[in-house]
């Protein structure tokens, strides 16, 4: 037991601080990707609900393709494909320049594109679920389109979509474990180093799993509280 604490603890030979740093990177990637996904989701839902034929077609293709592909394939595609695209562009401007795409940026972009495809569907459904009378009543009061959306439609849509959006956060958090594959020093990346160094891979991956589990459980508590707050207008009694 004391060996274990020495290995993963915060002592001078422990991996505690490294794992903590990895956990912070993981949460940063997941949170940035999730926020990016929400922004894409709002745009995508707008394109699907209000867009012209072209915008609708693009949004439809985007959600169908991204949701049909393995997450890891998209991550590799964005990371390596993005690197060679940027390198090609840079080569045109200044030949001989080597450019590496940041694994963090590529991971956030890829995971954001993935969660954006799902949140597009969530927002679309949730906005459709808001009774049209709500929108009409607000318009009758003289509110502008943006104000109607921001003050009347969005809050109600969020309340409807909250469970699905909360679930999407949990999925994005777990998917973020995949970006270690392109070499990011996230929780899984750090654990791989620790496993190789100490020859105790099970211990390290178990600790990482437990950290993920803790993050998931804390998230679930927070999401439950947010859901209660967002739906406070419709509780009975």
């Amino acid at each position: 037991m004391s060996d274990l604490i020495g290995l993963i603890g915060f002592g001078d030979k422990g991996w505690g601080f490294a794992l903590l740093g990895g956990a912070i990177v993981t949460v940063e990637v997941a949170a940035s990707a999730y926020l990016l996904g929400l922004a894409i989701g709002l745009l995508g839902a707008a394109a699907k609900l209000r867009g012209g034929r072209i915008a609708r077609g693009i949004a439809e293709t985007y959600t169908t393709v991204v949701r049909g592909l393995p997450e890891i394939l998209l991550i590799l595609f964005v990371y390596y494909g993005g690197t060679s695209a940027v390198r090609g562009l840079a080569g045109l401007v200044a030949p001989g320049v080597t450019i590496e795409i940041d694994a963090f940026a590529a991971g956030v972009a890829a995971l954001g594109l993935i969660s954006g495809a799902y949140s597009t569907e969530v927002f679309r459904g949730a906005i459709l679920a808001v009774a049209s009378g709500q929108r009409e009543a607000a318009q009758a009061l003289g509110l502008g389109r943006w104000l109607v959306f921001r003050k009347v439609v969005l809050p109600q849509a969020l309340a409807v979509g909250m469970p699905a959006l909360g679930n999407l956060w949990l999925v994005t958090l777990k998917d973020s474990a995949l970006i270690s594959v392109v070499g990011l020093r996230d929780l899984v990346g750090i654990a791989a180093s620790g496993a190789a160094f100490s020859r105790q891979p099970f211990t390290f991956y178990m600790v990482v799993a437990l950290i993920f589990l803790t993050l998931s459980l804390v998230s679930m508590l927070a999401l439950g509280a947010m859901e209660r707050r967002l739906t406070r207008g419709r509780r009975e009694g």
Partner: protein
Amino acid sequence: MDAAFIQRIVGNLLDGLVVTLIVVAASMVAGNLLAVPLALARISPRRWLRWPAYVYILFMRGTPLIVQMYMIYFGLAQFREVRQSFLWPLLRDPVWCAIISLSLNTAAYSAEILRGAIQGVPKGLPEAGRSIGLRDGQVMRLITLPLAIRQVLPSLANETILLLKASAIVFTITVRDIMGEANIIRAQTFRTYEPLITAALLYLALTFLITMAFRLVEKRMGRHLVRQPKTIEEELRDLTVR
């Protein structure tokens, strides 16, 4: 892009396709078989059955699959007992480890779906079974479980697609599935787009095929739900109403 290169991509990726199909099919079968006892344990009145099942499902659903897979493939070798056991030939084989971890993972998700279906069976049906003298085990085996499983079948298509997508990570433990073959070609040739886009098309085609196959199965299983052909009276009534 030369013809030889395309030929190599397609050939290797089709080899990978076979591996992907084996891994997904085996995990699908094993995972769902495991899901039944897991769901039953999860709703058992006995605490020593319920709690382990609860913790297992929580762990499997609350942690990333890739970490679970690393625990099995890289992790288990840490223990001498495992290395000396008769299971070692399986546990050091990447394909077996991939199938084991995907099965254990999908079993947890399926068990939760099945649990919902079991609890959703109308109370009167098991009660009727008990009233004609069936024991608890018989009620579960003959009445509740068959009804619940029929409820769950439509979600199986979705789960299979999720499993197919999840299976792409097995290349990280050196399995040469579709993704693995594509990644090897990418690393060897420094060409990113051709292998990855071909792999993407294969995955999309598989998703499409799975959707179609399950639609056929559902149609066939739902035969008894199709309405009988209308009688002449009904035809006439429909005509007059319109």
